[in-house]
């Protein structure tokens, strides 16, 4: 049928199908910023457009119903490259980060200001209520609206955007527009989906309906006959290559326990076959025609089930070691069903797969038993965290093609170089035959540290030479992705009457699910990012990770730290309660401070011995004191309604900045012929502003405006190696490499200038805006002339700075989070009234982006503590495979008073004193809220999420 509509002031006549949605129509006409992140669930709002002056979801609207309508899309907001005031205000306030929904949010806020020139916080919450923002936690959207209002009224901003740091510097610590903000907020081509070439084939996966089963056979004969089907890959024709999905430093502290397809499926949703076809319809038809003969096995879902005597064994294949094989390996490997495959450990991880143990680690300082003997009070408590999904708005997706006999992979990844290695391994080709292009990442949060889709799609392209596009459905994001490991953490803690902690024991039992990616590193973080907060001389930990048949787990912002922090900090509060002392006082008494030697780190290396270092810059004391003041610690608040009880809680937190001794970043900085700069950084900006940090470092060193510096990052052909963006490494590692490269280029510029100007180098300095000046003669040489003359045919060649950064020094970020909650004693409902996060990020290089990351991470972890939960039925089927059932926080779940504060601390090792910022912010909510709930109604919440039902149970209202 033919319809007519006006889209962004242009007449559009279209011949549509009856079932076509308005979004399909708009995208097919080039309005790509009208996106979809939930497969038409009608929840996330990526597809928001204005229809006849009302915001609607274009995916829930049939195109036919828009006949004669006037439609506005985010594209209408920018005009030939110039952004609207609202779009610019969003960039300036720091909310444009992974930004998948930023164009839709800009459209909504523009519409709001057109209808209400002075909206309240509630009005803004209301208009954004239909849009899911995971990266920045909504809070600075209020600021963005204010800034836009001010700009419209007065021509400039009045409200300060964020505190600024380091007066003597021009770019570092200053609010400056994020370098990729324009393209992201405007909705211009940015993401993998925007790079797919017309005519690309499609790949879909047949997934297991069973949690645990052998595949005896797969019949693909009929499926292969479907017209358009190109190939079908299964366990019976895939390469016999074992690897694992975690993008970690090589050799990895995780077992290689999977091939592209295995003879055994280990979770509902596990891969069974990949169907490549010209169209999705053909692939789906073929999928229906595949028959699989499964031999169903009993399945296990919890750590307790995995530990049980005679438990079904999830990974029961032949064990091999690349190094350090034990002597009894042969007998360990007797009697193996070959359908189990293999488990190859790059080095020993104290595993015992015959008892479902994927990895284990143990360590101690002092004598913990003696510590317990010295204690006046001793508690032992177990805390359970649940399985949580990262829920990036942009799901896992990839576009692969062949070019000049090389595999080209357009990826949304945190680890381009690990991705290249793993793809090369799976395809059994050298790395120089693989080109990874990291596109803008529409949300990663750890899940894009795992290679979950690129392996199979790249291999399919490699064997078929077809360009192929693959995109996870939202359901696949839940059932076949990486999630937070559920963990059971037992803490035994003893203290003297005055609150001095004398001994701490942590027993971490983690559930890695079907595969062992990150099986050591994530659970280890439960201890390594928590125990070093305490000065206690007697500490011991055991970490054991079990295989089960739940959907896969992996990396998630914070790794195991949020769970360890929840357990350790709640235990500290429980012990303080038992001793009748103020938990804050107890924390102050036992916390570390600058100079304290962190002996515990020795046993907390990731599978190797760790390096003992002293605490460096440390804002913990300030964070605790300031936070206590902000929340009126010690003052009991009351509400008029006697059913509502108010309580306060806090947690002290830490993380790391990358992995000293393991991570490595490199970068080059090139002086172009016109004196501008090109950075090639191996680092992977996930939207968090790493590229902006690199540009700022270069601008600062070379005194050249940021718009004269361009950056390419995370492209394995054009940039140098970097281990990737995980473990909070971006600012510390990648930016330190950029800084070193900038300093190297500076030296080279001065050397070259000395030759060209015929003056000693010592007399020359670099001044803004990119000029070499002689302090003696006053002569000036611009970068443009210098570079031109270096490349004229008689010059000495292009100037390139190189930076390689490795270190053993730790730059540990510290902080404290405080919560005030109201709990209804009749209904169990919980409201977060106040949430304050105070963190020391060293020098916050991008203060506005740093604050937004803190808001994002905090709201995420408020979500994990209170609402979010992956629930499986008794067969391992996920009952919560969409946003609505899973329960992510939206504007309505924002704390009434939400504040993030940057504690000023200069670090000696970070670039310009910077440390990491965002992962740490996931560690505070669970313990702070659990402790606040106890303060309010006297019950301890020892398992995630803290639902009204659990509160009622604890209060004895229901059984």
């Amino acid at each position: 049928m033919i319809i007519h509509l006006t889209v962004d002031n242009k007449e559009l006549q279209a011949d549509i199908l009856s079932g076509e949605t308005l979004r399909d129509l708009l995208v097919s006409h080039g309005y790509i910023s009208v996106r979809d992140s939930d497969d038409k669930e009608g929840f996330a709002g990526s597809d928001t457009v204005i229809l006849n002056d009302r915001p609607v979801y274009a995916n829930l609207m049939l195109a036919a119903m828009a006949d004669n309508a006037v439609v506005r899309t985010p594209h209408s907001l920018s005009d030939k490259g110039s952004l609207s005031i609202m779009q610019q205000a969003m960039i300036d306030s720091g909310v444009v980060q992974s930004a998948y929904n930023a164009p839709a949010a800009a459209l909504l806020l523009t519409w709001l200001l057109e209808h209400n020139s002075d909206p309240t916080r509630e009005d803004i919450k209301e208009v954004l209520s239909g849009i899911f923002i995971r990266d920045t936690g909504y809070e600075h959207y209020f600021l963005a609206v204010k800034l836009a209002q001010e700009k419209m009224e007065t021509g400039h901003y009045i409200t300060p955007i964020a505190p600024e740091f380091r007066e003597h510097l021009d770019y570092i610590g200053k609010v400056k527009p994020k370098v990729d903000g324009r393209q992201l907020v405007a909705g211009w081509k940015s993401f993998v989906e925007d790079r797919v070439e017309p005519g690309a084939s499609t790949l879909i996966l047949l997934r297991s309906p069973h949690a645990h089963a052998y595949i005896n056979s797969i019949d693909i004969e009929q499926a292969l006959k479907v017209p358009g089907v190109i190939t079908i890959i299964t366990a019976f024709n895939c390469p016999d290559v074992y690897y694992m999905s975690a993008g970690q430093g090589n050799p990895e502290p995780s077992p290689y326990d999977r091939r592209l397809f295995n003879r055994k499926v280990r979770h509902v949703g596990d891969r069974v076959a990949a169907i490549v076809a010209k169209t999705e319809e053909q692939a789906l038809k073929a999928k229906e025609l595949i028959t699989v003969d499964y031999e169903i096995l009993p399945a296990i879902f919890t750590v307790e089930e995995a530990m049980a005597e005679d438990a079904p064994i999830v990974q029961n294949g032949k064990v091999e070691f690349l190094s350090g094989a034990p002597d009894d390996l042969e007998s360990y490997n007797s009697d193996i069903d070959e359908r189990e495959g293999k488990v190859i450990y790059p080095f020993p991880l104290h595993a015992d797969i015959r008892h479902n143990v994927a990895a284990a680690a143990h360590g101690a300082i002092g004598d913990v038993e003696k510590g317990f003997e010295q204690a006046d009070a001793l508690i032992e408590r177990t805390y359970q965290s649940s399985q949580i999904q990262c829920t990036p708005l942009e799901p896992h997706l990839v576009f692969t093609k062949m070019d000049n006999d090389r595999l080209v992979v357009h990826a949304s990844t945190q680890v381009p170089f690990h991705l290249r290695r793993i793809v090369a391994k799976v395809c059994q080709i050298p790395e120089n035959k693989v080109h990874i292009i990291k596109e803008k990442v529409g949300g990663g949060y750890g899940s894009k540290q795992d290679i979950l889709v690129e392996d199979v799609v790249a291999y399919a392209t490699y064997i078929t030479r077809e360009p192929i596009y693959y995109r996870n459905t939202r359901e696949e994001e839940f059932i076949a992705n990486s999630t937070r490991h559920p963990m059971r953490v037992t803490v035994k803690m003893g203290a003297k009457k005055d609150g001095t902690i004398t001994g701490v024991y942590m027993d971490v039992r983690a559930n890695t699910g079907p595969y062992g990616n990150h099986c050591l590193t994530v659970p280890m973080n439960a201890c390594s990012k928590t125990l070093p907060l305490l000065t206690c001389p007697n500490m011991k930990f055991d970490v054991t990770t079990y295989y089960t048949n739940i959907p896969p787990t992996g990396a998630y912002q914070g790794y195991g730290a949020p769970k360890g922090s929840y357990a350790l900090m709640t235990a500290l509060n429980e012990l303080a309660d038992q001793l009748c002392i103020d938990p804050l006082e107890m924390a102050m008494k036992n916390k570390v401070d600058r100079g304290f030697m962190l002996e515990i780190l020795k046993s907390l290396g990731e599978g190797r011995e760790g390096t003992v270092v002293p605490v460096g810059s440390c804002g913990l004391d300030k964070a605790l004191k300031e936070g206590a003041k902000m929340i009126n610690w010690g003052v009991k608040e009351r509400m008029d309604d006697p059913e509502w009880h108010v309580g306060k809680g806090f947690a002290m937190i830490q993380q790391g900045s990358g992995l000293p001794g393991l991570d490595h970043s490199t970068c080059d900085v090139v002086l172009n012929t016109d004196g501008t700069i090109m950075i090639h950084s191996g680092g992977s900006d996930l939207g968090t502003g790493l590229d902006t940090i690199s540009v700022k470092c270069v601008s600062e060193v070379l005194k050249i405006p940021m718009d004269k510096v361009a950056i390419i990052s995370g492209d394995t052909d054009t940039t140098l190696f970097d281990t990737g963006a995980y473990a909070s490494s971006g600012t510390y590692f990648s930016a330190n490499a950029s800084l070193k490269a900038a300093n190297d280029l500076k030296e080279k510029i001065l050397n070259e200038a000395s030759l060209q100007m015929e003056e000693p180098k010592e007399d020359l300095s670099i001044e803004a805006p990119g000029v070499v000046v002689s302090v003696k003669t006053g002569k000036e040489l611009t970068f443009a002339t210098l570079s031109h003359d270096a490349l004229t045919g008689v010059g000495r060649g292009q100037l390139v700075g190189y930076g390689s950064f490795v270190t053993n020094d730790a730059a540990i970020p510290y902080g404290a989070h405080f919560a005030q909650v109201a709990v209804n004693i009749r209904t169990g409902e919980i409201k977060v009234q106040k949430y304050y996060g105070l963190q020391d990020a060293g020098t916050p290089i991008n203060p506005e982006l740093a604050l937004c990351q803190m808001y994002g991470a905090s709201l995420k972890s408020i979500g994990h503590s209170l609402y979010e939960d992956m629930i499986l039925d008794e067969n391992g089927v996920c009952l919560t495979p969409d946003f609505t059932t899973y329960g992510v926080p939206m504007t309505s779940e924002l704390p009434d008073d939400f504040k993030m504060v940057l504690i000023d601390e200069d670090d000696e090792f970070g670039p310009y004193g910077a440390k990491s910022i965002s992962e740490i912010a996931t560690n505070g909510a669970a313990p702070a809220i659990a402790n606040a709930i106890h303060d309010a109604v006297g019950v301890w919440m020892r398992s995630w999420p803290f639902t009204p039902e659990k509160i009622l149970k604890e209060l004895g209202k229901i059984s």
Partner: protein
Amino acid sequence: MIGKFTKGESPKQILQEVQKGKGLTRLIAGGTEINRLGSSVAADHLISLQNLSLNEIRKEGSLISIGAMVTFTEMLESDTIPAYLKEAVRFCGSFTRRNMATIGGNIAADRDDSYLMPTLLSAKARVLLGDISIDGKYNEEDIPLREYLEFRDHFNDSLILAVILNRPQRVVLSKRFARSVQSNAAVTVSFGASVEDGTLSDFRIFAAVKGTGIVRLSHIEEGIANRQFVEPEDVAPSATQNIAFVDDITGSSSYKRYILGSSVADLYKQSLSIVENGGDL
């Protein structure tokens, strides 16, 4: 798969098409239920109601008539819609969805976590239905929403034209229990009563219970009317006697049972206090 889309021209023409379509021709209003992932509605031919002028909110003497195509947002923007209904409209936490979702669609969708049904039922709302009788004639009839619900299957092919509320107002208080505002509700409960001479009468108590459906707590209505309960709290233990609750992702059956019983008592208590304080309805 939707193979055909047409815009309905008149109620009669629409109903004739629906009859011909034998269950696979369905009406589309806002489309938020029909077009969503995992929709409960299967159809191959959709007939849009957008040209029928069903989007008016009118005061008609002591009645308020809300056209079936009135959206949630239009209800919130209207001065005519009573506050208690606006409260239920806000149970739909997404502003964008409220711009699309209609009252008619919500009633017809008849979900076990319905935003509006408990409130409309407690308000003693009526629905104006268009139907084709056996002799092929087009009829309009207004019936209690309660009856529509009771004989829901019988009205599968009916066209909801409007929802009618009585203006001499009732106290209607509702409450929705969900983990987050936009997660599925375990229980949505509504308590309604008429106010005459400062006392409450003519009670209606309805709840949407996830996994169970929409239930009427008639024994509690009767018990309150007969003064069987001395204090509002006394209602709670017997409120949920005859209801079969199920465990699901929104909560256990014991949670649902407790929260429903406790809320009925609480809403009753609140209603009493509103009347005692001569409060604004």
